[in-house]
């Protein structure tokens, strides 16, 4: 039996009269890479914000590790192991590459003001351990040689990778990637696919990604969930979804 990590149960999100997500249900298994696709305005990002706690569902339930997390604040969910990247990159531009990853690390956040003031040997060792772990994540995304640069000075593709590294530094179990390949060239996309694969294998985490590049989705996703107008129209493995008439209709429109 596969273990279930995340389950959405008939989740609905309404903004006034607009139904952004309409009774969507799906689940994610341990170690799975799940892709969420759909035309613009299908409710993919709303669903992401729901999972990270920026929105709460109007009805239905979000279960993470068999716990209802409907109303947990974002930082609480990070503690539980859910981390994300953003569609429009939200790095701290005037922190360095390394610092951007450091701030996401629990060991950096939990240092008390007293121990910062006295800066004992133990505190220094703790800091060293935190830095080492962050360097490890940076090595996976291939940014270890750029740690002294300000995040804002990185090229676009590397900023995306840095955001993934930052999310990983929270020691997440479920990684949500919101259009990680947007604006990347084919070379960068290839690198990104390798990074996502190696993260999935090395840490055995679950990855949920929103992506428009169908070829990329087909190559890395174990399963695909298709949304349109807030509803789930189908889910399944790559070829099933690709040939589903409903999906073709959603993307290309109907025959005249």
């Amino acid at each position, binding site marked *: 039996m596969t273990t279930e990590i995340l389950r959405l149960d008939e989740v609905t999100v309404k903004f006034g009269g607009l139904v952004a997500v309409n009774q969507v249900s799906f689940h994610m298994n341990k170690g799975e890479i799940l892709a969420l696709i759909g035309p613009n305005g299908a409710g993919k990002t709303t669903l992401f914000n729901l999972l*990270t706690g*920026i929105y709460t569902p109007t009805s239905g339930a979000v279960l993470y590790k068999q716990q209802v997390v409907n109303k947990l*604040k*974002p*930082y609480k969910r*990070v*503690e539980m192991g859910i*981390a*994300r990247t*953003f569609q429009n990159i*939200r*790095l*701290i*531009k*005037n*922190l*360095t590459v*390394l*610092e951007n990853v*450091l*701030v*996401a690390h*629990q*060991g*950096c*956040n*939990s*240092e008390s*003001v007293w121990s*910062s*003031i*006295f*800066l004992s040997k133990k505190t*220094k060792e703790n*800091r*060293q351990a*935190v*830095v*080492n772990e962050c*360097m490890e994540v940076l090595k996976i995304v291939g940014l270890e040689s750029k*740690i*002294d640069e300000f995040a804002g000075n990185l090229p676009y593709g590397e900023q995306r990778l840095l955001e993934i590294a*930052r*999310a990983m*530094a*929270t020691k997440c179990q479920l990684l949500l990637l919101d259009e990680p390949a947007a604006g990347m060239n084919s070379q960068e996309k290839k690198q990104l696919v390798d990074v996502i694969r190696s993260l999935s294998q090395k840490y055995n985490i679950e990855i949920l990604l929103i992506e428009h590049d169908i070829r990329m989705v087909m190559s890395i996703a174990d399963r695909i969930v298709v949304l349109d107008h807030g509803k789930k129209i189908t889910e399944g493995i790559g070829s099933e979804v690709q040939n589903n008439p409903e999906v073709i209709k959603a993307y290309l429109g109907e025959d005249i």
Partner: protein
Amino acid sequence: MKRIKIWAIPAAILLLMLPFVVQMFDNADFLLRIAVMIGIYIILTLSLNIIVGYAGQFALGHAAFYGIGAYTAALLMVNYDVSFWLALPAAAIVTGFFGFLLGTPVMRLKGDYLGIVTLGFGEIVRLIFVNWIDLTNGPMGIPGIPAPSLGSYTLGSNMDFYYLVLVVTVISVLIIRRIVQSGFGLNLLTVREDEIAAESIGIRPMKYKLLAFTIGALFAGVAGALFAVTAMFVSPDSFQYVESVNILAMVVLGGTASIPGSILGATILTVAPEALRFISDYRLILLGLIIVLMMVYKPSGFWGESKRKRNFFGMTGR
């Protein structure tokens, strides 16, 4: 890894010798008094820089915390004969507590709104100093604050005050430096830049903003206690709205989120009005003009954040 910077030793010698150099001038006491005020303003500027520079909270009522610290120390020393060495930490803690109290509701506000509320807080505190005559002696102020004593020696002269302020300022600068060059400092910068991103990586913006506000208030309390004991007199006039603006100008002129910047800003803006005394009536106009020009041509201040040490958190093993 202990490397003392080359300039640190001559700077230390200069600071220690300064009172003796100053004795050569006729107005030695006046010059020492300015030096004392520079020290006090350095602490004030750094404490406000934690709130404005690092946490990015536009607070306009810093004189209130300065005043609370000064009055706490003054009242404890005059009414209860508490020694200065106890009154100083007590003033810091009381002021820090007020910072926490004000911060709890106010940290939910942003930008201009926060500015207005803290401005109001500053005025309320000043009006309490003026009107609660039983406690604060009203506009007359509290005179006769006793000089601190060290063993059997009483620190009574301006030279003694200079060394007292020098020691407390240096310790404060070192503590604040440790506080901001830490995970806490990085988190503050993250919260300042992007609260949504901060939350997405497990940082609670409220907690860090509140902590910054409390620590900022606490050090303002230290500065207040130093002021009370070196001036030997406190009155509401010293803690008016212009004082808050003055401290804010020091932060901005020196450079936000920068410790050398705060030291520079405090020094320049304390010395400049005195140095410009010869043009009497026009000095404030000239000072205002300098600040405006500075902001137009160098908005990051004399020593802004761009000069900060990168990756201060730990060694990267290269």
